[in-house]
């Protein structure tokens, strides 16, 4: 039988191995991005002789990093803002208002949760191409305006807000609009922050939707641009691809570092 002490050691050894396996690819990416093409050809697995940032300069020459970055951020922010603006009143209605068909509306919402973007893109693409919206920012944002997951998350959080609070606000003459957009957000702040982060990161990282909805450089997002680095040019390019990849993954990793707790709450809430 293994004793407590050994058990403890075994667990820590396993944790150490996991940390190494999960951190190694990032380290490899960073190291590769600091190499010169000559180093890559001669000894692809050796350490770089010096810190050279030439590959990063190549990335900025090959694609408009700044523009992609700006567009991606605007897109992800617009989606998250729209989703919250729509999810607040919807969640409020589902949690706090009595209306006929409320049960049916909730069941409907739950079933909408199971329709991923991968299922919606064929009809949405054909609809947008008839409307001439393909390859525009609205084509990237509008299909995600309503988040069933967001409505569900906020509705669950609203259930624990006491009705007496809302009654008091109504007696003070607050309109429903005031309640939804002024009174509730501070109370729901933890859930809102968690949902905002999950939504922002998800759409900032998204590859599928921008890929199928854009045809050229006009509204291309950063993940698409970085993926393109591999397809363009010829010869040894791994240092450039890895430099681009570092630029792409740093913001997500930084956000993760700052807001790990909120992200975990958003993701650990069961759905999604």
């Amino acid at each position: 039988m293994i004793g407590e002490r050994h058990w403890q050691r075994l667990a820590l050894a396993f944790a150490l191995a996991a940390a190494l396996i999960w951190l190694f690819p990032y380290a490899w990416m960073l190291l590769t991005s600091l190499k010169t093409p000559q180093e890559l050809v001669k000894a692809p697995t050796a350490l770089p002789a010096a810190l050279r940032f030439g590959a990063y300069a190549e990335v900025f020459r090959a694609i408009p990093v700044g523009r992609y970055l700006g567009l991606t951020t605007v897109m992800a922010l617009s989606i998250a803002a729209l989703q919250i603006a729509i999810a607040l009143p919807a969640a409020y209605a589902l949690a706090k208002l009595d209306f006929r068909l409320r049960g049916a509306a909730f069941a409907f919402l739950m079933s909408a949760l199971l329709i991923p973007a991968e299922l919606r893109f064929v009809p949405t693409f054909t609809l947008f191409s008839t409307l001439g919206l393909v390859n525009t920012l609205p084509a990237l944002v509008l299909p995600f305006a309503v988040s069933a997951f967001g409505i569900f998350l906020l509705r669950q959080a609203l259930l624990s807000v006491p009705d007496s609070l809302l009654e008091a606000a109504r007696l003070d003459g607050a309109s429903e609009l005031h309640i939804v957009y002024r009174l509730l957000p501070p109370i729901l702040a933890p859930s809102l922050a968690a949902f905002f982060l999950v939504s922002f990161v998800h759409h900032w990282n998204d590859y599928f939707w921008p890929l199928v909805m854009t045809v050229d450089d006009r509204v291309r997002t950063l993940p698409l641009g970085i993926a393109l680095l591999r397809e363009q040019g010829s010869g040894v390019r791994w240092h450039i691809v890895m430099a681009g990849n570092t630029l792409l993954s740093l913001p997500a990793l930084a956000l993760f570092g700052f807001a790990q707790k909120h992200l975990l709450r958003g993701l650990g809430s069961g759905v999604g």
Partner: protein
Amino acid sequence: MLVALGIFFVYPLCSALRTSFYEWDLLTPPRFVGFDNYRAIFSSGELLSSLGTTLLVSSVVVVGSLALGLALALAVHRPGWLAALARSAVFSAYVVSWVSVGLLFLWIFDADAGVVNRTLAALGLGPVKWLTSTRVAPLTVALIVIWKVTGYAMVVFLSGLSSLSPELQEAAALDGAGPFSRLRHVTLPLLRPTAAFVAITSLIASFQLFDVVRLLTQGGPVRSTTVLVYAIYEQLFRDLRVGRASALVVIFFLVLAALTWLKLRAFRAEEPA
């Protein structure tokens, strides 16, 4: 709200259902063909093959991330910097984009200059055709997906572990149960509902795989990694067959609906605990 949901969720589905009975290349007007699209999908074997690939990759991913996620959760469910580091490292992969992960492993598993094959060569082994052999490529894809999603499984198991009462462990320890038998007879049975939830969630997620396939293998070699969503994408953007793609969407929806029904059952089983 209902109207909005209707526009964004119900309309696309109904429209996919309608389009699936037409032949349409986006350029000329659609032509009604009845069940021809479905017949073509079933008779060409492309549905069966991509469904089979999806099932293969999904089952490896589900089993792998479930076992690894549980083992990791048990190992890092303790104080100390090493456990905290491991928790953050494993979970960070879940936050990084699929594009990053795809490009990263494309380089690491590169047949010639990749670090894995170079290391194997230094040991006198290999080279392994990670992404260019029809037999290995689906497993490589599954391995990379496991690297990416195990953090989520670990986090759910960790929250499951925190909700177990410590008294139960102490009582078992007082009764003379060692760490291993405590794990086997107390902790694991109590985590069963959590495991069911993790399994079905990652099954649904791995049925929607696309990005990593598009980046790493483009469905190849010889369609060996053409998962369902990739098959739909090809029908629409390579072959311009909107009707056929829509028919695949309808079938895909039915599969997902069945899986989600399973998920709701797992969810309900978890609640009383």
